[in-house]
């Protein structure tokens, strides 16, 4: 049993990211998710959508990103649909977070944090749309 999903469809531009974060906040209202849980989901959505905007719609007049969020049982389920280039997910290499800052490679933390901060990540691509699904369970 789930409540009515929250949904927003915006252009694939970095300017849309604050609206996506607001939607996650609204969908989490009275959900029992902790502030840290909600922040984790917002961070994950930021990273996924940034990838879609920069790489998924590369060399195209940007199309839409559809973000849907709903509580399913005790978890927040977020679905991100886009119509850009299809991708194949691969396991992320773990960045060396122990190394001194000046020795670390630039970047590389984005999707690493996504994998670390949420409970499930699924990605499906087809010519009718690419769908990324994130699941974040309430922290015990």
């Amino acid at each position, binding site marked *: 049993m789930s409540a009515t999903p929250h949904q927003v469809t915006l252009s694939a531009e970095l300017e849309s990211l604050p609206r996506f974060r607001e939607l996650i906040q609204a969908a989490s209202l009275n959900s029992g998710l902790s502030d840290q849980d909600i922040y984790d989901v917002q961070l994950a959505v930021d990273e996924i959508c940034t990838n879609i905007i920069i790489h998924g719609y590369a060399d195209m*007049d940007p199309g839409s990103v559809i973000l849907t969020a709903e509580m399913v049982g005790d978890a927040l389920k977020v679905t991100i649909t886009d119509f850009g280039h299809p991708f194949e997910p691969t396991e992320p290499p773990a960045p060396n977070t122990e190394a001194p800052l000046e020795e670390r490679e630039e970047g590389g933390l984005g999707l690493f944090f996504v994998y670390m901060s949420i409970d499930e990540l699924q990605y499906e691509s087809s010519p009718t749309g690419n769908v990324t699904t994130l699941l974040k369970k309430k922290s015990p």
Partner: protein
Amino acid sequence: MQVFFKRKQQPEPVVPNLGSITLSLLEGDPTIPFTLKQINELPENIRRRVYRNLVPAHLLTRFGIDPITWLGANKEPLVFIKAEHEKIFVSARTTPAEEDEFFALELADNLLNGIDLNLLLLNDPTSQRFGTDKDEHGRSTMFGTINRNMAEETRAKEAGLAPGQVRNSLSASKIVFDQVETFLATIGQRAYFLEPLTYASAWVFEKRGFAYVRGHKLMDDIHREFQPQGKLYEALNASSPFRQPDQWNTVRGRAWAIHDGILETIDMNWDKLRMVKQVGKYANVNTFPNSIY
């Protein structure tokens, strides 16, 4: 930022290449979609049973056409289909005359075996007709995209029509899109695509639940630049009947100005837009908030 998603070099087709529709294929996995080409290879009467699903029965009975036989009150055929290769074209008329067409629809398989909506016409046959589809020499204007009949377009605009229209709309797009989706679900297709001819048609498709594969940013840019002090707003300088200052705040007004080439002001063109509708889903796009048609 480092990307852990590798771009696919060869997108997979929507429909696998399984050849012609056979009884064993029909008895197999019902989620495997069919292409229009596969349906068009079926015998004529089977095709007709399938494509009957494309025409809203309510729309036909409204004009006295039998939704099963497709005959009018005088037993004359008033619904016509052309199903060849990868396309299906359906046309319905109040009389056998071409100018009395009130409904026309063309679907086609695209390169990935998905479905493109190439054409949708919904004309109120009782309304005044404007000759925007033919130039002064009687040649087709292709909805004003190849050449234009300025005198007829001016009259059409004053009568409240949008670019590309020859008559008032039937206001039946919702039942037609519902019907198309039912048809697509029947053949197992999950989405369909189109390229909007005009700004007004893109706006209508937004209201019917479409999202953008390409062009969402362009629509946002257009809205921003039509606001007071925007470049498109400033370009509505009464230099032609299609660029009047009050056109900034209506869908039709913007559509006529764009049809007239005003996007060149911001170094853009009305092309390369592509929209998608996922069957059973509503994208809720709104690039012109609080719009007036």
